[in-house]
Structure formats: C-alpha cells, structure tokens
C-alpha cells in the first residue's frame, strides 16, 4: 500500500494527495494506492502540478492501530511534526489518526531522502 506525498509550493508544508485529487495536510486524508500502476500514474501526474507540489514521491504505508501509517520513521516525522517541540506540527491536532501515527513501529529507508541525495 502506498501514499503520494510532497511539499506544498507556497509554504513548504508536507502534503498528501487525497482521493479527491486535492493535496491535503493530514496524512489520514491521503489516498492509499493498492496498485503500483495507479500509484505511479498519480506520481507522474503530480510531477506536472508544479504550482502545487514540490518533488512528489510515493511512500509505503503500513497498518497501525486500525488505521494506516507511513512505514518510514522519517515520513512519520513529516506527517506529525518535529519530536522536540510538542507544540509544533501536525501532531497538535490530536485524535485517533495522530495516535496511530505516533504508535506505528515500521522501519524502512525513506525514498524521499534517497532521491534528495541522488539529485544533489
């Protein structure tokens, strides 16, 4: 299962592609792709949306507490906000979806970081 993420152009916020086709701030509202082909097609389209999203890429997601969470820790930090400042970032919204992210235990290297380094 995958989700599509990137950073919003005008403010840099971590955003996710929703089923509606809009880019949203909450990971819980992200569209989840079962099919790799559909995910890759969405990623290819996102790369044309240059006034909306910067450097879109696919992330793996895993089940967590009845919801879904990014597999990579880096991606969970993006979806939650910095761990050193409880008062900053998306985690301040609280609720079950945030708890599911906070308690997820998956681990994998982030494709976002690998691609960033490759492009440098």
């Amino acid at each position, binding site marked *: 299962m995958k989700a599509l993420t990137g*950073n919003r*152009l*005008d*403010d*840099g*916020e*971590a955003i996710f592609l929703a089923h509606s086709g809009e880019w949203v701030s909450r990971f819980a509202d992200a569209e989840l792709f079962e099919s790799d082909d559909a995910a890759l097609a969405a990623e290819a389209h996102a790369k044309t949306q*240059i*006034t909306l999203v*910067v*450097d879109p890429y696919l992330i793996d997601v895993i089940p967590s507490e009845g919801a879904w969470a990014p*597999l*990579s*820790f*880096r991606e969970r*930090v*993006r979806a939650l*906000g*910095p*761990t*050193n*400042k409880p008062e*900053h*970032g998306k985690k301040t919204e609280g609720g079950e979806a945030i708890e599911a992210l906070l308690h997820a235990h*998956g*681990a*994998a*290297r*982030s494709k*976002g*970081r690998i691609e*960033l*380094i490759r492009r*440098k």
Partner: protein
Amino acid sequence: MYRYDTIDREMLADRVAEFREQCQRRLAGELTEDQFKRIRLMNGLYLQLHAYMLRISIPYGALTSRQLRKLAFIAGTYDKGYGHFTTRTNLQLHWIKLKDAPDILEHLAEVGMHAIQTSGNDIRNITADPHAGANADEVDDPRVWAEVIRQWATFHPEFSFLPRKFKIAVTASAQDRAATKVYDIGLRLHRNDDGELGFEVLVGGGLGRTPYLGPTIRKHLPAKSLLSYLQAILRVYNRYGRRDNIWKARIKVLVAGLGAEGFASEVETEWSKTDQAKIDLPDTELARIRSAFAPRDFESLPATSQAFEAAKKDPAFARFARHNVKPHKVPGYAIIDVSLKKPGETPGDCSVHQMEVVADLAERYSMDEARVSYEQNLILPHVKLDDVPAIWKALDAAELATPNRGLVTDIIACPGLDYCALANARAIPIAQKIAMKFTDPALAERIGELPIRISGCINACGHHHVGAIGILGVDKKGEEFYQVTLGGSPEADATLGQVLGPALPADKVADAVDQMVEVYLRERKDGERFLDTFRRTGLQPFKEAVYADAH
C-alpha cells in the same frame, strides 16, 4: 562593527528585488522547481521536512542589538517565535513560507544582513573567534580579516561554482575558539620572530564522511598577502577539485590526495604567477575596514569589582561566574557566555523573547554587541564586572543563565531528522535526554569540561568527530542508531574521535553517556578533563562499561 555603505545597500536592494521577482515567477509556474531550486538556495532558502528553512548569515558571529532585534522580529512575524543558532554561527528559521521569503530578506537588508552564500558551492559565511576584540592574548582583531575575506568572497564570480562548498575560519589567539583545524581553510593570525603580522594557513580540514584535520601549508603568510594567497588556493581547488563525485569534492580530499606539501607546492606556483598587487587589499582599503573595528572606548576600572565579588555570596551566581564569565582584555570588564543549553531544551534554539532580552542587555551593558559562538551559544563580549550581577538576573529570568559553558550539558546538536531533509536520525532528542541526566549543576560541575557533540547524519553539522564524546545518528534499515566516538577535540590539540564500538539504539545512548561519565569519574586523576583521562586510558574501560550487557 562593519556598517554597510551605499554600494553594499544598493547591491542588497537589487538582490532582494531580483529574488522577489524570481519567487513570483516560481509561484506562477513560470519557473520549474529544478530551475528555481538553485536560485532559492543562493538566497539561503532550503526546503526541509515541514517547511522552507531560511539560513541567515551572521558574519563572524557578530550582531548589533538592532540586528538581533530584527532577527527576533522576523522569527516572531514569519516563523513560530524562535530561531536556531548553528555551528556555523548562522541563524536558521525552520518554518518559513516561500511567499514570505522576499519580505524577510528586505527586513534583513534594512539592518545590513542577508542569506546570500549560506548555501551552494561557494565561499560560505566567514567565521572567527567569538571573543575577538575582547580577548587579552589576540595579536590582532580577527574580525578585520574575516570582514576583508567576506567582502572579497561575496559574489566573487570565479568562486561561485566551486566543486563543493567552502568554509573559512579566522582566529588570532593561542586558544582556538573557531575550530580552524576542521575548516577548508583555517587562518591563525600570529606575529613571527620579527614581529610581523601574518597567518599560519591550514588547508583541507573538514568533518563529514571523511574527516581530516587541516595541515599547515604555510607557516607565515604576510598579512598583506592574504587575498592573493587565498585566490591561489581557491584556483588550485577550482582546477583540480573533483566534480564527478560529491563525496570526494571537498578540498580536504584534494589536499589528502596531493599531500600537504604537494598541495602547497601547487598553491605557491599559482601564487607566483599572480599579480599580487592587483589582488591584495590596498592599505587604504584595509584601513577603512579596520576602522570599523577600532578599539572600544573602555573605562579605566579597577581589576576587581566589589559588586561582582559580593554577588558571589549567592551560590547560583558564584557558579555562573565560574563557568560563564571569562576574562576580558581590559581590567574591570568581562566576557559573558549566554547559554542556549538549558537541559531539556533544544541546543541553539532561542525564542523571540530571549533574543530581545539579549539585544537589550547588549545595548545597555555590552557596547551594543552580541556574538554567536559555533558551540551554539551567545556571548556578551564587553561587560563591566560591576554589571554582571544585574545581567545574570536578567538572563536568569529569561532562562539564559544556565551555568554550564563547556560542561556536560553544553551539548552541540544539529537539527537532525526533526527538521533536516538530509538527516538519518534525530539529534535533538538525544541531546535532551543526555542533558536531563545531568540537571544537577553541582554534578555537572564535578564532571567538569566535557564537550558532547551530536550529528544526525554523516555530514557532521553537529561536529561529532571532534567531541570528547561524539554521537552520530545512522540509519539501519530505517531505524535510528547512534555511533559513539571518544576523544575528539577541535582546539589547539585537535584530534578526531575514535569509534567506541557497535552503534547503539536510540534508547541506550543517554545511559551509555552516563556510564562513560561514571568510568571517567572513577579513573580520572588530579585535574584531568574527560579528554585527558581518555587519552591516558584509551577506549577499553569505556567500552567495557557501555557494552557490558552484550558480553
């Protein structure tokens, strides 16, 4: 302090206007991200995990109170009410919006500041001893020369696309507070046997994936020849530095490959072909820059202060005086370290209120100057001993008076995976957990000097290679692990740390530091710092303590 002249101001205004238009074109889709990325980075604007990050240049770490207030205003207006001082004496704002960036740069320009050359493969912000102009044993004011280099390097067309980024540090004291051995170029001002001012030139130091201590390629470069010699170094690097492999592109790899003598020979050959008189600064221009750093109008005061001594009856003040008050070159004055390392807080973070407090104190008590040190603290460089008790009270009220300068809780930590797009692992929470083990100031004082330095990736922004205890975050199949090194030092006796053993999981790191401190307290002999004990005993006792459970 150097003040921008009309040319400087016009140049900055043009640059801001240019970037404003470029941002508008990007937001309108007229520029792609690939086209725009290089432009925004040239203006210090990075894209990180949660937002854009603006890295603001603070040349040689020097700030007027007006500049510091402006940084506070920007952090309060455009960010979340704080900024992060870095090991390059810059300020990073981690929650910036692209659409606000031109306005922020315009605000910075009003106070003679910018974010130019805080990214890219160019000559970055020039750093210097943060005690410059206040320190008794310096042979000259290193800020003069750092400013000379800054003006020469800013927008230098030949050195705007180097193989990789390039960092220069200047010091003029025996005690190296600028980490010159781990810089691309380290410049140590001194006088030779004939009393002539010159630089010992170190080239090819650096941390990162392949750490090196910079070797000396010239023991005494006449001060007047600085710029032509720097040009020769940069030309050799520009010609031979590798551009095909990012991990081998820094000058340290070139110097290591050619050997210090081989590299020096290339530089001397290039220098001999240079029309030095055309490149080196005319005396009149040097005098103009030097006048900006003219000695301050210090009062004649007794060497000791009754008010200062009387205040030491308060044990908390006495502890602050022992650790955060340093001797000044003028009797009756002192240098104050303002700690940004309260245990539990993020190292280097400073709130808007705290910036304003330091700006007010600088204006009232420190001849309108504050400094940033590469250890991520602030400094009030010129305060009267008589005023130290009042300053301490004001700092204490703003949670800026932690008496821990150089102690176990004075930890350097990069932003790490909490913010940085390149990081492998978090650095800040590790620093927080370690510091919370040593919140008792009496314990921290008993342990004594113990620099801990933490980086969230191999790029080593947290200087882990030169920490007495260095901690490097690594990615093991997506999980945070931490490799510990011991015995590093960035100072005159510079050494690189040695790896303790297998990397530790995140929840074991603070305990491991605690265990290593216990070993040190058990093993140390009279007057030994942690580093001294380690150099005597080697890794073994520390290794045994940390990995005892594994055996």
